[in-house]
């Protein structure tokens, strides 16, 4: 390819051509050996001065100039034929065939091949090449058995000797001298009047044909093979072809662009007509210019004035300035510019020091080129097509010349030897000065430094280069256009203008693919069915052609994939510049292996967060367009895995900006491509692409009967702790470390089905198909089947994966493996969102967000891939966290027994109870597993527990209420169970459990939890825990409240002996039967009474029981409604008993007495409490359904004990007894005492009133006694009656005092005594009373 080197005008082109069966590598090595000669000293060129005239271009032996050589391997396009005089330097002046000759090779046949190849490449009659020669390289030394005697003209054997390179130099020198001789011949021809006329005949003249030359030229010497080649038979071309061949083919099919041979040959005909038009036959401008060109080529820039190229050019310029010949003038300007550079080079080359001029010398050169460009631009184009292409070619190469001048000076840090070398470099690849390396291209500082040093800004280079671009590029032939655009792109790249480079590269791609597609069409194989018509940019006219080939069998030709890779690389580069990473999704060998990273990579995990928060970058519309083009290009190649890669990468990176149509199209394309690639057996597969598909993984909750619960072994022997019942499940600790650690793990059972619920997401607008989703686990082996999932468009989707853990231990669920169809499985880890993890993610987000609105870097340097390089040091610090991820864990425990409830005695699970009723239910359990159960524990809950617990929690209850509530909870559970029942169930056996039920008002439902385990499991070993399972039996409970107690009362109950007497006689009456209990003779009793109301429809019998120490049990039965009474013995409780604080049954640790009662109040409250407790101990009631079987207990707990009742119930502090005695008569006395409370006395008699006070307290008390008698006016007494001091009495001690009194009248007298205690607070205000009646009669 042409490299558009600056000094191409001064380069002598020698075309290297492979001849015979020479391997490419060998050809390349020989070619590179030849290419080391970039310049030849003129002194080294043999001056063959046979002919004075011919020696005109040959150098003097002493001359110091250089001949610059370049060695292309491609012949010029035939369409450029018309330029042969205007721009001789683009044609190869000589052809060197390179052949490898080994033993047995026929030199003659090689020679023939060479000639016939030449004939193919160059049209007959063309001026160039001037010299042709074939170098036959000997492969091994000493094989010179070739018959050198038969010397073939134009064939040179290059022996394989040590100094072969030197030898080659000599050969090239000879070749060059031949060229220079030919120059002379050609000039001679043109200098003749006929020649000059030819020269001026048209805009782009052709050299005169041989026949018309005036003087016979002895060309036979120098080109002896011309006459002979026609007779040579056509030799088949070797399989190794140079790029020229397809070009030729292409040309032949597009006749509009490429002229055929005949066209070129016939140009002479119109040129004759033009002769008169131009009328410049006398002008020698063009001749001078030609001479200048030849002198330039022959390196004669330093010679005497007459021979210098520059002089000739100046002469020509003088002529053209007046004459209207812009094309030639422009060409002359270019030549002059080249001249000055060559001169500068040779000057600098020898001295090797840069000249310090006042004005930068390149300005002149640049001005001259600007002039040339303007001239080219103004040239009026003739009508015919091929000249258009040539014009544009000249224009473009001129622009490139100027640009490369600026670029060379800029890149070489100024005007100096380096710049000249850059400009003169002829190689097949563009030469980059060492100041620019590939990595520096985006380094702003380095680039700017060059600008500052040289004074050439990058923008000036760019603007110069910008002139090149325009619609006229379409005129160029494909090959020239690609070459021009390539050079343009590379200059843009070098000055760091990446976006412009990308623009040009897109055009390059367009050219290349156009060639490819058209080339295929010529093969007779159309790709139309495979490539959608809408491919390409989508910005051109689309003519959807109905696929003719639809439904027909496509014939697949073997396609060469050479070069595909480079095209894809180019695409990826363009996209990167525009901010899309086409390789965001990798392409690698298809594998089914599941790669698990240890420790999990943090970057991979955070990738999605980073992506999600990434600021928009680049130009969305352009990106979409480019991406579409990229996919189309990859499809046209075709490279199916890459199609998928590109399509999916862009789906991933551009998801937010792609329209639904585009998304769908890309996805469809990718799927189709993947299918095709799999069908064709492509080993590559794409990585997983669609972002993080997993949102969450959770263990699906096991059915409750299967959940194992870990318990310490000690629980088996533990007494039931009431605390849980009272407090519910509420944890009293704000921070419970044990609970926190339990969070991540759940218990699962070995070999039982385990289900995981995986939430997947699909952010796209199409249904996303996942070929495989499976769990990524570590630890215990987990046996599960992957599943195929289709996630509906833009939704969250849940799937359940089930499996079994086959061993015991810890099962860690790291995440999921997902695999898209035709892709590689990828693991997505999903750590638990622990606090640290959340904190870390939040921090990451903050970092990204705080960066996102700061524009520290120019846009091109903000791409994620460039950023990655800059922030390399940071992730290392964070990488350690990766290992700290916590994952979902399951503890797999050994296989467990399983029970089920086979039957129960409760119909429909509903239980109907009366309030306080006690009944039993039976539940039959069946062991359905093969493991025995040896531990069984029942627990129950019911609907009354919750509200009570809540009330207790709130703590607003009084101490008394608290006690009641707690009592209810602990001592009156709805469901009870006998703990001593049989506890083991063998496999497949049944066990019936009996449970007690208690009717409690307000209970609506209850649950029986039966926990069981195989606690002696040998697999558990010595671990301190075992595993429980629970089976629950829910009950519906209905409790009817049919009996309502109210108005409990305690009444004083003095002894009434006469009642007993009457009861003795009539014992038939049931009412009297009840009253029998009231037959109590001695003191110290009180009467317990209660009202019971039956609010239910059926009658109930109620029995009141009394159980008191030392007294016989008594009961009183009645059929409700009437109330019930029973006498009970008064009691007194010791001070210690009474002063105890009201207990809390829960034994709570932190009960703080919150009451703010005074001491006295508190004491009273405690007394009330303890006496009530005592009362309920001795009185209980049971009910019985009249005529039925149901019975239960009647609770008085709702009743209150009031202070008067307390006073009644409690024994007095002292026992006071009064008696009256006649002083004189012993017998009477006895009689009196016999009558008891009533005494029959006579008036006006002195009687002794004895009052006996006995201290009933447990401590000594000081008593006073008040006596009273009514009516007091009818009796007299001795001493005082009130506040009689009795003194201190020890506990149980008694004292009697007696007073004499006399009744003055007959009648009934009431005598009463009140004993008061003093001395301690307990006794204060408590009075013991007694009274007697005295009936005073006369007889």
């Amino acid at each position, binding site marked *: 390819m042409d490299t558009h080197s600056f000094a191409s005008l001064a380069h002598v082109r020698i075309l290297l051509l492979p001849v015979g069966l020479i391997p490419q590598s060998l050809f390349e090595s020989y070619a590179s050996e030849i290419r080391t000669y970039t310049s030849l000293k003129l002194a080294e060129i043999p001056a063959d001065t046979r002919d004075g005239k011919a020696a005109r271009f040959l150098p003097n032996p002493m001359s110091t100039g250089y001949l610059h050589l370049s060695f292309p391997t491609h012949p010029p396009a035939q369409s450029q034929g018309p330029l042969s005089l205007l721009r001789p330097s683009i044609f190869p002046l000589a052809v060197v065939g390179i052949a490898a000759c080994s033993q047995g090779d026929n030199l003659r046949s090689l020679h023939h091949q060479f000639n016939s190849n030449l004939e193919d490449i160059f049209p007959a009659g063309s001026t160039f090449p001037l010299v042709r020669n074939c170098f036959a390289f000997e492969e091994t030394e000493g094989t010179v058995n070739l018959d050198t005697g038969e010397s073939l003209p134009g064939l040179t054997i290059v022996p394989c000797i040590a100094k072969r390179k030197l030898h080659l130099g000599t050969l090239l020198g000879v070749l060059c001298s031949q060229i220079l001789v030919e120059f002379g011949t050609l000039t001679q021809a043109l200098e003749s009047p006929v020649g000059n006329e030819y020269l001026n005949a048209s805009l782009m003249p052709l050299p005169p044909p041989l026949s018309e030359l005036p003087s016979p030229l002895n060309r036979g010497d120098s080109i002896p093979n011309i006459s002979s080649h026609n007779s040579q038979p056509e030799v088949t071309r070797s399989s190794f072809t140079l790029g020229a061949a397809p070009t030729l083919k292409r040309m032949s099919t597009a006749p*509009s*662009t490429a002229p055929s041979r005949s066209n070129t040959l016939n140009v002479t005909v119109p040129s004759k007509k033009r002769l008169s038009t131009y009328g410049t036959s006398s002008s020698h401008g063009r001749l001078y210019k030609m001479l200048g060109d030849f002198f330039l080529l022959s390196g004669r820039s330093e010679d005497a004035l007459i021979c210098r190229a520059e002089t000739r050019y100046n002469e020509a310029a003088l002529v053209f300035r007046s004459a209207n010949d812009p094309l030639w003038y422009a060409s002359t300007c270019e030549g002059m510019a080249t001249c000055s550079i060559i001169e500068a080079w040779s000057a600098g080359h020898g001295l090797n020091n840069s000249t310090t001029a006042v004005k930068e010398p390149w300005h002149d050169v640049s001005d001259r080129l600007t002039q040339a460009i303007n001239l*080219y631009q103004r040239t009026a*184009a003739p009508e015919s*097509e091929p000249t*258009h292409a040539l014009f*544009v070619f000249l224009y473009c190469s001129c622009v490139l010349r100027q640009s490369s001048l600026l670029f060379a000076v800029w890149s070489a840090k100024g005007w100096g030897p380096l710049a000249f070398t850059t400009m003169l470099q002829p190689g097949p690849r563009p030469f980059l000065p060492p100041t620019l390396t590939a990595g520096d291209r985006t380094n*702003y500082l380095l680039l*700017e430094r060059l600008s500052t040093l040289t004074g050439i*800004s*990058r*923008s000036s280079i*760019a*603007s110069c280069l*910008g002139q090149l*671009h*325009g*619609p*006229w*590029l*379409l*005129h160029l032939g494909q090959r020239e256009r690609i070459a021009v655009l390539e050079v343009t792109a590379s200059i*843009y790249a070098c000055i*760091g*203008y*990446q*976006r*412009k480079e990308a*623009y040009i590269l*897109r*055009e390059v*791609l*367009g*050219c290349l*693919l*156009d060639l490819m*597609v058209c080339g295929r069409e010529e093969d007779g194989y159309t790709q139309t069915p495979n490539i959608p*018509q809408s*491919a390409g*940019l*989508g*910005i*051109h*006219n689309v*003519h959807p052609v109905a696929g003719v080939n639809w439904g027909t069998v496509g014939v697949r030709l073997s396609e060469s994939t050479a070069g595909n890779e480079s095209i894809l690389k180019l695409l990826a580069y363009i996209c990167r510049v*525009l*901010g899309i990473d086409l390789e965001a999704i990798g392409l690698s060998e298809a594998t089914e292996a599941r790669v698990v990273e240890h420790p999990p990579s943090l970057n991979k995990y955070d990738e999605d967060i980073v992506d999600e928060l990434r*600021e*928009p*970058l*680049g*130009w*969305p*519309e*352009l990106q979409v*367009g480019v991406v579409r083009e990229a996919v189309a290009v990859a499809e*046209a190649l075709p490279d199916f895995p890459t199609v998928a890669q590109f399509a999916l990468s862009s789906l991933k990176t551009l998801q937010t900006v792609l329209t639904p149509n585009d998304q769908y199209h890309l996805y469809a394309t990718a799927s189709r491509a993947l299918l095709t690639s799999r069908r064709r057996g492509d080993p590559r597969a794409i990585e997983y692409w669609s972002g993080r598909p997993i949102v969450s993984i959770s263990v699906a909750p096991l059915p409750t009967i299967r959940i194992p619960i870990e318990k310490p072994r000690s629980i088996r022997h533990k007494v039931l702790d009431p605390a849980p019942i009272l407090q519910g499940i509420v944890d009293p600790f704000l921070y419970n470390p044990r609970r926190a650690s339990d969070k991540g793990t759940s218990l699962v059972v070995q070999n039982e089905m385990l289900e995981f619920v995986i939430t997947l997401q699909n952010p796209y607008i199409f249904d996303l198909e996942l070929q495989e989703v499976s769990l990524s686990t570590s630890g215990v082996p987990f046996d599960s089947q992957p599943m195929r999932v289709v996630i509906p468009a833009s939704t969250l989707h849940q799937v359940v994966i089930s499996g079994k853990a086959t061993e015991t231990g810890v099962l860690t669920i790291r995440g999921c493996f997902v695999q898209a169809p035709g892709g590689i499985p990828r693991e997505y880890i999903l750590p638990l969102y622990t606090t640290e993890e959340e904190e870390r993610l939040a921090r990451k987000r903050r970092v990204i967000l705080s960066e996102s*609105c700061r*524009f520290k870097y120019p*846009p091109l340097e903000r791409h994620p891939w460039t950023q990655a390089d800059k922030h390399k040091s940071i992730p290392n610090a964070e990488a350690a966290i990766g290992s700290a991820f916590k994952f979902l864990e399951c503890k797999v425990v050994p296989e467990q027994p399983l029970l089920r409830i086979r039957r129960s005695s409760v119909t429909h699970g509903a239980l109907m109870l009366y309030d306080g009723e006690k009944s039993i239910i039976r539940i039959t359990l069946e062991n359905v597993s093969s493991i025995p159960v040896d531990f069984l524990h029942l627990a129950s809950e019911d609907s009354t527990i919750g509200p009570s617990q809540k009330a207790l929690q709130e703590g607003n209850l009084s101490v008394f209420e608290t006690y009641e509530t707690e009592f209810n909870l602990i001592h009156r559970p709805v469901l009870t169970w006998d703990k001593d029942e049989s506890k083991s169930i063998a496999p497949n056996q049944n066990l019936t459990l009996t449970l007690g039920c208690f009717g409690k008002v307000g209970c609506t439902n209850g649950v029986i939890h039966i926990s069981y385990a195989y606690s002696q499991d040998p697999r558990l070993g010595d671990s301190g825990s075992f595993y429980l399972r629970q089976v629950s039996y829910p009950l519906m409970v209905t409790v009817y409240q049919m009996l309502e107690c109210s108005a409990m009362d305690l009444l004083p109950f003095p002894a009434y002996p006469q009642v007993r007497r009457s009861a003795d006689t009539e014992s038939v009456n049931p009412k009297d039967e009840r009253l029998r209990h009231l037959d109590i003779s001695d003191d110290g009793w009180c009467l317990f009474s209660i009202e019971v109301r039956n609010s239910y429809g059926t009658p109930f019998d109620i029995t009141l029981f009394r159980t008191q120490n030392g007294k016989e049990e008594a009961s009183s039965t009645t059929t409700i409604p009437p109330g019930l009474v029973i006498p009970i013995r008064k009691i007194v409780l010791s001070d210690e008993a009474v002063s105890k604080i009201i207990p809390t049954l829960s034994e709570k640790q932190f009960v703080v007495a919150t009451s703010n009662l005074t001491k006295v109040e508190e004491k009273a409250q405690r007394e009330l409490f303890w006496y009530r407790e005592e009362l309920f101990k001795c009185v209980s009631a049971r009910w019985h359904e009249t005529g039925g079987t149901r019975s239960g207990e009647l609770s008085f707990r709702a009743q209150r004990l009031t202070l008067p009742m307390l006073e009644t119930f409690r024994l007095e502090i002292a026992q006071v007894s009064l008696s009256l005695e006649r002083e004189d008569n012993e017998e009477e006395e006895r009689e009196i005492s016999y009558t008891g409370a009533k005494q029959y006395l006579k008036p006006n008699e002195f009687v002794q009133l004895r009052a006996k006070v006995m201290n009933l307290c447990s401590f000594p008390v000081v008593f006073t006694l008040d006596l009273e008698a009514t009516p007091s006016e009818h009796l007299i007494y001795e001493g005082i009656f009130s506040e009689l001091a009795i003194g201190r009495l020890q506990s149980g001690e008694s004292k009697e005092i007696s007073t004499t009194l006399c009744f003055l009248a007959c009648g009934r007298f009431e005598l009463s005594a009140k004993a008061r205690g003093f001395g301690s607070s307990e006794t204060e205000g408590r009075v013991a009373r007694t009274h007697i009646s005295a009936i005073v009669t006369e007889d």
Partner: protein
Amino acid sequence: MSHHLFLLSPSDTPLYSLTHQSSKPVATITSPLASNLPTWSTSAFAGTLTALSGASSTTQHTSGGAVKVGGGQDRHVIQMIANASLDVIEDEMRKQNLMYFKSIDKFNEWTVSAFVTPSNMKFVLLHEGKNDDGIRLFFMEVWELYVKTAMNPFQTAHTAVRSSVFDTRVRNSARKYL
């Protein structure tokens, strides 16, 4: 004569774009080189090439199937040119302490003028004729309008400008100066 205005965020994302057809006539100097263009093959890629090289005056294109862009100019190519000119703008704005860069770049038939705000927003205008003062005034007005829009607390440097008021005023201003 058409104008294409792009407001680009600091990350090169267009926040607003406007195509304005000016009533002013333009003296289009077509290079003789660009005349008589050949029609190339009909392959899709040749179409791309044709469009990118700027030789699209002969054919009308629609991009995306719906939006028809006036002036026979392909929208995608216009955007490519505007995008490519950012290279020069970025280069120049680092070197020169200016806001208005007149005719900073030329590509195909387009001249590119740019205006860089202190917050690194770039206004890029593709125009054909020479109208330095008008463009400067136009840019100043657009800047003022943009600053007013940016004062909206919900407007960030990445949010597209969708305000209809902004749009109307920019259009008015374009009518006035371009």
